[in-house]
């Protein structure tokens, strides 16, 4: 059955997927479908997360098989430990990238952070990662303690966002869409969070070519020489764009998925590292898409800009769309449906991450449009917006998908700071009603709310959730 129309809402993206299928290329969608159903025990959080080699232990969610691990751990302990482990990963990712390992929150959220620290057992610091690792070494801690530690780590993750992903001040213009790939000169795609040295070497190489080439980001937000590089697609569309044959070469950073390099090899697309980039002679061989398939917007890079850009303007409140593409939900479906619907309800809308790229691609962030969607730093944007507008004015922050543990810990951390947060894709918490209730209680005690669904949420459901505030 033709199912491409449910993979992405972008009609050109659908054509790219059809083209890839015609070429016999295996993209993420095929891998995703081949993996169905994904492990049921892990999906419910009932696969033991402890660093213990007696197992692996799993608990039967239907209660007929094992009800405890070898050590006697029950389902509540297993699900709580699973969440703690994810938050630990998220916090560690934040720590490895932070310039300053002392957490800091915007001044406006200082009281909320202090309150959370007090309720959760004292000041939060990098040492919390060691405490969590110790708790995860043997299953002695109660679910209550595990959840408390998970929330402390989520608060830490938020406090470690530092200058954000863009590390820029002021406002940056951004161009988004397949059309940025067009041009007379050679076009090099960047993905996998390339190093600044690699980006600089490529800029030199493309600048020296005749006609002058350009580099474009694939699903990434990259600032070079004070400018945001044009972004060709969202993170979920990278393979489809590569398969189109629009690019002349690709440069991969250390975080590139293995599938990207494999795909480039299979279609004969040159892949550059730092050394090759400096010496590369760029030539134009590929034909790009129509240059008009591109939209523009402006990114509010700092808390100050967010404060100025998100002034109330008579709106009924602010709704924030964040998060990354997820294969469980048609790419772009939630951001492109929700942003206009939320505006129609009188709310201002801000977006970051892949959600921002989708609304920008749809022209909803264009400064020429009526009440454009504000684009925010992909890492700390929601935090800036929360600080600028205040938890009372922010009607909700919806993560349309979470890709990394850091995204999940960040989302939880915002709830700990008193925000209403939702995640539209299922989380591994459904194996224990007790843990879900306990998590809700703890976050509610801090003035926040954390919603998630036992299925990929539809725009109607998320819209109803925004309306509940």
């Amino acid at each position, binding site marked *: 059955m033709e199912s491409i129309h449910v993979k992405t809402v972008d009609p050109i993206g659908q054509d790219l997927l059809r083209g890839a299928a015609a070429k016999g290329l295996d993209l993420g969608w095929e891998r995703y479908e081949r993996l169905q159903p994904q492990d049921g025990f892990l999906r419910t959080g009932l696969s033991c997360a402890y660093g213990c080699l007696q197992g692996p232990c799993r608990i*039967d*969610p*239907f209660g*007929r098989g094992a009800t405890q691990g070898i050590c006697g751990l029950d389902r509540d302990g297993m699900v709580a430990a699973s969440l703690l482990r994810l938050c630990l990963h998220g916090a560690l990712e934040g720590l490895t990238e932070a310039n300053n390992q002392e957490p800091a929150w915007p001044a406006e959220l200082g009281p909320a952070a202090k309150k959370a620290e007090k309720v959760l057992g004292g000041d939060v610091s990098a040492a919390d990662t060691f405490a969590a690792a110790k708790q995860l070494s043997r299953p002695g801690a109660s679910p209550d303690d595990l959840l408390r530690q998970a929330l402390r780590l989520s608060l830490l993750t938020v406090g470690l966002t530092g200058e954000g992903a863009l590390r820029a001040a002021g406002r940056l213009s951004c161009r988004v869409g397949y059309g940025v790939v067009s041009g007379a000169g050679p076009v090099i795609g960047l993905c996998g969070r390339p190093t600044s040295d690699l980006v600089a070497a490529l800029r030199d190489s493309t600048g020296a070519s005749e006609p002058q080439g350009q580099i474009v980001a694939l699903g990434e937000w990259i600032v070079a020489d004070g400018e945001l590089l044009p972004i060709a697609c969202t993170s979920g569309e990278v393979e489809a764009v590569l398969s189109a044959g629009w690019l002349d070469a690709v440069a991969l950073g250390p975080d590139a998925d293995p599938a990207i390099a494999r795909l480039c090899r299979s279609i004969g697309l040159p892949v550059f590292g730092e050394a090759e980039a400096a010496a590369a002679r760029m030539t134009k061989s590929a034909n790009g898409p129509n240059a008009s398939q591109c939209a523009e917007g402006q990114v509010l890079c700092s808390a100050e800009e967010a404060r100025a850009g998100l002034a109330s303007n008579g709106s009924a409140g602010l709704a924030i769309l964040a998060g990354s593409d997820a294969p469980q939900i048609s790419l772009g479906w939630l951001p492109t449906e929700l942003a206009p619907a939320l505006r129609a309800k009188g709310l201002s809308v801000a977006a970051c991450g892949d959600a921002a790229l989708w609304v920008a691609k749809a022209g909803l962030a264009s400064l020429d449009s009526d009440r454009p969607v504000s684009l925010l730093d992909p890492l700390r944007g929601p935090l800036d917006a929360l600080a600028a507008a205040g938890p009372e004015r922010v009607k909700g922050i919806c993560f349309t998908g979470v890709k990394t543990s850091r995204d999940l810990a960040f989302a939880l951390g915002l709830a700990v700071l008193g925000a209403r947060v939702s995640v539209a894709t299922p989380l591994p918490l459904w*194996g224990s009603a007790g843990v879900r209730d306990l998590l809700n209680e703890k976050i509610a005690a801090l003035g926040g709310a954390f919603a998630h669904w036992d299925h990929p949420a539809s725009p109607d459901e998320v819209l109803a959730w925004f309306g509940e505030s």
Partner: protein
Amino acid sequence: MKVIVARVDRCTGCRTCELYCATERGSEGRTLLQAVQETPVPQPRLRVEGGPDASLPVQCRHCVEAPCLDACLTGALVRDETHGMVHVKEDRCIACWTCVMFCPYGVIFPWPDRKFALKCDRCMHMETPACVDVCPTRALEVIDLAELDGVSAEKRKAAATLAIAATDGEGVVHLDLAG
């Protein structure tokens, strides 16, 4: 008649078949994450048996001469004329568990919470049985009964060839019963 066959050499004992059988055939929500929240908890119609050395999903064989059919007091167990599968008419089952006792393979399970006997009907009204669809190692397959006879004959032939080779062509294994 098509039946489900299990390949012990491919089964890793992951119990994915159990999870999704219970979800697809025993729950209202039909998704795992909704099924785990239901009361009474959904139950699978097949069970993974075995230990660390070998595991195997077992489910109803739909015997040609099915003892459960004769044992059923109320006519709740019937054979579907189209598909040839033995299945339970849940509204007729009085939960006496006679069929459970008579089944020679132990693959009919009592479900006291819902007051009926639970057994595999090979998801006969679905394109592919849920367990076959979800098995990550393809240890479960649907094949035609006639084809199964052929596969079994091949297996017997292969086993006999090995046995003959192992006994220097004699084909007779001498057992030392005296120890």
